[in-house]
């Protein structure tokens, strides 16, 4: 294989994909819930947090948005972009400069707005930038292995989030096809995922362990 990607770099690329996807979803879902909370439907925001295993109280819509963005929890927008950026910094020699630049800019914007009321328009902009970042990584004609790892991480995270937030197996069927395709590209020994409804309770565990088929962590 021409890429010669190390175990460490492969792991960081995979997690870059996961955190980017989680960050994107958290912005979209937080903005969605924000609209409900403005109408004093506080339960909508609390339900979103509950699906992520969190429990928060807030007094108004602005406070909800601040908690979703900067709250001290691993589903916060800020946390996910910080982690995406950390992973990107470590393997930035393997990724597109413009993609890194967009991601870094999202992080810089989040840091600069930390002590202010977060604007939903700013979050909309970040959502666009996140999608641009992902688009840059995947739109290149030359697609080296590095991007397959990012994409693999992104699809694993999509599956995980769809099961947690939407509790739907149907929604992930297309993603499974992509995961199997990428798995084969990255490892000739990759065993295809075939999901049945009886797997519903162990979907997260199943998908979260797939990367171990590709990266030889123990070697």
């Amino acid at each position, binding site marked *: *294989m021409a890429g010669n990607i190390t175990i460490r770099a492969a792991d960081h690329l995979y997690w870059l994909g996961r955190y980017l996807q989680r960050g994107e979803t958290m912005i979209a879902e937080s903005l969605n819930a924000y609209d409900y909370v403005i109408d004093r439907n506080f339960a909508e925001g609390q339900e979103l947090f509950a699906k992520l295993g969190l429990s928060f109280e807030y007094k108004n819509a602005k406070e909800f948005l601040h908690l979703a963005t900067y709250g001290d929890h691993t589903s916060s927008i800020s946390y996910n972009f910080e982690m995406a950026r950390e992973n990107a910094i470590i393997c930035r*020699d*393997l990724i597109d*400069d413009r993609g890194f630049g967009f991601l870094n800019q999202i992080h810089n914007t989040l840091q600069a707005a930390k002590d202010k009321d977060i604007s939903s328009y700013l979050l909309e902009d970040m959502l666009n930038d996140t999608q641009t970042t992902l688009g840059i990584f995947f739109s290149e004609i030359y697609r080296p292995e590095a991007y397959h790892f990012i994409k693999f991480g992104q699809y694993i995270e999509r599956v995980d989030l769809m099961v947690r937030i939407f509790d739907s197996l149907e929604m992930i069927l297309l993603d499974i096809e992509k995961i199997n395709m990428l798995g084969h590209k990255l490892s000739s020994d990759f065993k295809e995922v075939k999901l049945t409804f009886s797997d519903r309770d162990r979907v997260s565990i199943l998908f979260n362990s797939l990367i171990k088929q590709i*990266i030889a962590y123990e070697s």
Partner: protein
Amino acid sequence: MVDDQSLEYQKFLEIFRTIDLGKASQLKEFLNTFGVNFNLFKDGDFIERPFPFDIVPRIIPKSEFDHLERGLKQRMEALNRFLNDIYTDQKIVKEGIVPAEFVASAKAFLPNFMGFVPSKGVRSHISGIDLVKNSKTDEWVILEDNLRVPSGASYPLSIRKAFRRTYPEFFESMTIAKVKQYPSYLEEMMNYVNCGGINVVLTPGRFNSAFYEHSYLAKETGAKLVTNEDLIVVDDILYLKRYDGAKVRVGAVYRRLDDDFLDPQFFEPTSLIGVPGIINAYLKKNVAIINAVGNGVADDKGIYYFVPKMIRYYLGEEPILSNAPTYLPYFEEDRKYILDHLHELVIKDVAEAGGYGVLFGSRLSREELASIRNLIIAEPRRFIAQELIEFYDIDCMMEDGLSPRKSDLRAYVIYGEDIRVWSGGLTRYALEAGNYLVNSSQGGGFKDTWVAGE
């Protein structure tokens, strides 16, 4: 005094007066967006920060740079020969040119490597030579040779790309030497000394102050960026651990960590960033290490004094570039001079680097002068003293317009199949007026360096 008399600088100023300075913010934005950082550790905290940048480049007329290039090639040829000699026959010591005590007491001299000649006999693959231009003599003077892990080339390389796009008018109207060949110089050098296998850049990790540079150079040279956990030595051969469990042979390591931390089995046993066994692979000539292990003896501040003598000894030539006038307390005559003129000399601790351990006699109190006097008498090998050179200031764009600042130039020399001087360089400047310390680790900023003219 500002070095502003050259036609090239005048041409620059002519254009500079017409440009939209508001667009300079795009360059700062570029540095922020792309995380072009030179990070600092302050009071135990890791501070991520862009390397302060000034838009006014240092401009060196081509004819002046040609002279520098000849002098730097000559100096690196001599220093490489010195290293090969000092680790083999030590003729220069036996013939009394360099005192044996100076070599033996140099902290970075590694007697365990006596007799070892690295791949292709090249030791100083990448050198960063620090120079200033003396305003009294109008000549470039060498302040320091860095033959271990000189950093900084990536910053002017990165900003040049953005600057050209922001202010193309300079490049359309002036003849400015290209700099983008630096990574290919590095790659060709790595391939030349490679002992079989791929090239890697070994970084201490993400929290190193120059991590940006490590990843940049890996990307631009096509080498893999690795940390110690990505490498393994089996039967004295170095391998990269690929994600699928395969091991890929490594033939050249551009290491960005000091000798002391390179191999816990050989050097500092507590090193968490080294690769166990890499030195054995190196000694068996199964891998090239860039720069060679033990190079520090040649850029020791005490050995610096002898470089002009080395040039005469090895090459039979007069040095093209001068050292700053330097005195060694080790020699009785010099010691007497130093002690009599402490208040006007610059005293340097040979064990320190990065602007640390530098004392300006004129700024010391009576008590401090007495203290340093006693230290010099007690440990003469530990210090050197230099005349304070009144080097040129350079224009910097400050809030109130162009303002002079002290600055130096780090020139880069790549030694592979042949010796190449990069037609650019890192110009560092002091942020505060009157400060002579320009080092990045002292909070100094950087400028691009343009070699201009036909």
